[in-house]
């Protein structure tokens, strides 16, 4: 019977969610495997597990519950071990590494920040700042909308200008938030957002970080800033190979070999 793994914690963790419903339908009960000073939060792995909504949420809920009471290293969704013994084997083999990570993340949570342009607002800015774009838009309008090629040309110019603003605004947002967090992890780029950044924040001082986000929203009204958290520190379980310069972090990105 294969075993689904949610996360790794210290065996001294005060409230691991034993018995809570995990992945699968019906939900498989969460169990705790202990090995020395470490514990793995696991359940039976249902046959044919797929990334369905309820299973993704179950994974996230188990980790939120575990993370609320103490430090947990969240696994990526879908990690399945052949059996319990192979999990305790990994815990024993890499104990020092996991213990170091748990210490580094003690009392810390992740907040993920994503930002988009408010399209109308950014188009206004782009038009206001570029006489070329204004001129072309004007010419197109006077000729009843412009030819297909004219529209493409205008659209290309606007898209390039918007893209440039995306980079500028991402930098501005980082400038406003980075100093309020302990560590920063930049997520994958996508056209779905101009910034996708996870912040490691001390649970005790989360209010300061949330205040910085609120301030950024006020200062940059042309951005739609979305924040999710507190979350288990998904983005900080591995030592970051390329933490951006200027983010001063002690201990969380070094020393774990």
């Amino acid at each position, binding site marked *: 019977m294969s075993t689904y793994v949610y996360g790794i914690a210290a065996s001294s963790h005060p409230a691991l969610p034993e018995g809570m419903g995990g992945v699968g339908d019906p939900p498989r009960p969460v169990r705790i495997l202990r090995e020395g000073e470490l514990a793995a939060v696991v359940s039976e792995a249902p046959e044919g597990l797929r990334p369905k909504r309820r299973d993704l949420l179950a994974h996230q809920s188990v980790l939120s519950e575990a993370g609320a009471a103490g430090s947990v290293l969240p696994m990526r969704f879908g990690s399945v071990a052949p059996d319990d013994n192979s999990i305790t084997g990994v815990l024993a083999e890499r104990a020092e590494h996991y213990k170091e990570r748990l210490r580094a993340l003690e009392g810390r949570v992740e907040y993920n920040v994503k930002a988009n342009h408010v399209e109308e607002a950014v188009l206004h800015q782009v*038009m206001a700042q570029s006489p070329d774009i204004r001129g072309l838009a004007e010419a*197109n*309008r006077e000729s009843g*909308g412009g030819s297909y090629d004219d*529209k493409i040309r205008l659209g290309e110019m606007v898209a390039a200008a*918007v893209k440039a603003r995306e980079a500028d605004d991402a930098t501005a947002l980082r400038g406003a938030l980075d100093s309020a967090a302990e560590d920063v992890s930049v*997520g994958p780029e996508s056209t779905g957002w101009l910034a996708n950044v996870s912040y490691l924040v001390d649970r005790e001082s*989360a209010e300061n970080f949330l205040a910085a986000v609120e301030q950024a929203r006020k200062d940059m009204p042309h951005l739609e800033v979305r924040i999710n958290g507190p979350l288990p520190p*998904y983005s900080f379980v591995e030592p970051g190979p390329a933490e951006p310069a200027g983010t001063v972090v002690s201990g969380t990105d070094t020393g774990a070999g």
Partner: protein
Amino acid sequence: MTVVPAQQTGGGGGSSGLYDVLELVLDRGLVIDAFVRVSLVGIEILKIDVRVVVASVDTYLRFAEACNRLDLEAGPRKDPGLPDLVGEMTESGARGKSKGALSGAAETISDAFKQARDEGSERQGESRPRARKSTSARRKEEQE
């Protein structure tokens, strides 16, 4: 123990997009090479689907139309009685609403994806309703 996942993922951080959290659950977190991972094939396709490609002809045309509309709003020089103008402004309002719904708390992952898709096709088709069919057909081809 009763668990309400949607509220937990929201935390104290304000409105929570489920999609935003799932991206972390799926793409980050600890990976142990001794364990296997379940197949994520279906999810990958959905994620590509919601990430609208900016550098495309569809986007250029949409931006071009949006710029025309912006100037009309700022200083109307065309006859405001033109029916196509009224249509555009109405659709612009509807788009604002759907965008708000998307950025709010999404109820389900499939709803979130569906909304994003709907929004995408609505945005692309809004200024040229007749082109909608061919536009979405072209997007489909790109995805395959």
